């Protein structure tokens, strides 16, 4: 028995993901992070939206919540504000985080609400059959870009840094040990943390773009990951094809939203209330 298996809900196995899908690896890394931090399963809630990534909570043996498309961060905000001492993990895919959910993403980042987000970036809308997503690289063929994608992709981590997120990291499913470490670190961060995980959807994205098995897509992801210091030395045209990995931003000083609420708003309101009543 492994320590991390106590966070796994084996009763709902086997998982519905395609053979070789990175989602299962991320599930394992998160469970290992919970185990490393010795958290109580009941003190954790995992929230996800719609998509292949959205099926992840079903397999955690913690409190789990599967909600509407793109809105996982909003439900998680309500839970965190109601019970700030609990650990709230949000798992989102391409569309859930950056298309329909894009607005909630930047507001959660701006607010610095203490949610720990795992953004699974597989460059496609897998669940619905392989349509283009805001994270699909240019020129790739998908179900809704049969002539090649002309839209440039978001660089999700960089977008979040601009939205004032206080912890942003990027890793891939290929490098398991760094992935596990960075997820653990992000869980220890008090404010809003995001780990963008580059994952492989070989069935939908890879298959239409000459990488139809998990192993060749693994090689492709490996070739595109690069350390941040080296990334900065590249020319812009070359940067377009690479993902800088590692912890990209860490701000430990910023106060988390519910902490700020209970430290500032409630005492101020109560003080004013006492003053008003005293003045009567």
């Amino acid at each position: 028995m492994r320590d991390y298996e106590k966070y796994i809900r084996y009763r709902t196995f086997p998982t519905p993901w395609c053979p070789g899908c990175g989602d299962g690896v991320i599930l394992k890394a998160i469970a290992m992070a919970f185990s490393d931090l010795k958290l109580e399963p009941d003190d954790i809630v995992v929230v996800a939206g719609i998509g292949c990534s959205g099926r992840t909570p079903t397999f955690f043996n913690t409190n789990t919540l599967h909600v509407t498309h793109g809105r996982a961060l909003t439900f998680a905000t309500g839970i965190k504000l109601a019970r700030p001492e609990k650990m709230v993990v949000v798992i989102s895919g391409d569309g859930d985080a950056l298309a329909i959910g894009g607005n909630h993403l930047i507001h959660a980042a701006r607010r610095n609400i203490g949610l720990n987000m795992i953004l699974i970036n597989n460059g496609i809308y897998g669940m619905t059959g392989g349509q283009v997503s805001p994270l699909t690289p240019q020129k790739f063929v998908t179900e809704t870009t049969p002539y090649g994608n002309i839209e440039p992709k978001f660089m999700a981590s960089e977008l979040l840094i601009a939205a004032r997120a206080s912890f942003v990291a990027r890793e891939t499913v290929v490098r398991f040990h760094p992935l596990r470490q960075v997820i653990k670190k992000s869980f220890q961060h008090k404010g809003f943390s995001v780990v963008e995980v580059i994952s492989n959807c070989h069935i939908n994205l890879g298959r239409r773009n000459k990488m139809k098995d998990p192993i060749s897509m693994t090689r492709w992801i490996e070739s595109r990951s690069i350390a941040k210091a080296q990334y900065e030395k590249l020319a812009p045209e070359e940067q377009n094809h690479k993902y800088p990995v590692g912890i990209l931003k860490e701000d430990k000083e910023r106060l988390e939203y519910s902490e700020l609420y209970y430290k500032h708003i409630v005492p101020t309101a109560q003080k004013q209330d006492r003053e008003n009543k005293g003045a009567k």
Partner: protein
Amino acid sequence: MSKREVLQGNIIAAKAAVAAGCNFFAGYPITPSSEIAQYMSLELPRLGHDFIQMEDEIASLGACIGASLAGKKVLTATSGPGFSLMQEQLGMAVMAEIPLVIINVMRGGPSTGLPTKPAQSDMMQARWGTHGDHPIIVLYPAFAREIYCETIRAFNLSEQFWNPVIVLLDEVIAKAHEDISIPDQKDISIYTSKETEVEDLNIYDRAIGENPPRVDFFKGYPIHIDGLEHDKHGWPTTDPDTVDRMQTLRMQKIYHYLDEIITYKEYYMDDAEIMIFSFGVSARSALAAVKIAREQGIKLGLFQAKTVWPFPKIVLRERFKRIKKVLTVELNMGQMKYEIERVAPDDVEKKALLRANGIPFTPLEIIAAVKEFKYERL
């Protein structure tokens, strides 16, 4: 001894929510309901409770549902355009059997419509706005004291039946400042759903007509709450028998208790020959019309629906055994009149007084319609 105050309808609703135990509000401002959010932003922090203004209505209801699952009593307030946005999230709350209260202050529609004018055009949307088969309870007070009592009842019903409850108001009664004696807290009865022992993570299966044996998060059970159709553990399934059972359970938990849920008020109905069916601001004009008509010798009566959904079909069918003329007065182009047409037998003469131009009906207009009994737009 409760004291008399002059309060705006929105504030009455907000105070009632706080009295009912509401300890979480997430909302987005929209005319004519913003005062509720503003009041909550002042009052909830004073009590150590949670208030947050979210980035849109969808986020507001999402945060409310999350907080409800974390054990809070939640409220949000909006109007037409925001209510339309909330429909998907509302469906999720019905599917996963989550208590919450939404106040929809109706204004002229559709779309941006008439933000500062009243309407009663969301009656059908309140029932059917979200997709799929779903039960819902919709309350619609008309007078100041009713706003207070029905809002508290909304919280109690949502806790009792593990279902969202919608409180409809309209721009007139929400914005009007009226005098009201707020009841003492000790005279108000609050219902909070009881803690249950969950066996084998069964949070949904029970006898038909009963409530789910569900607990919230963080009660020691690793439960799964899902918007997908699910089995008794909450885990997703498509098995036809399971799905059928879950649909039936969700409907029947409400339809077994119509006597408890449905409320209405009747004025001058004992010997009435013509009945007015109305609600909200229109019912207030209708009440004045009934009083004037009675002085003129017309045997007019008013049936004011305070619960609009589930529709008070059984009691109305009783009335239609004796009363054979009914006038539906609603500030829209015809919505609840179709329910009256469905429920009243063929020998009842049915008419409707309708308009949606932002001007409420006056008592004299209603009497003119009763006398002519020819006024109908559609």
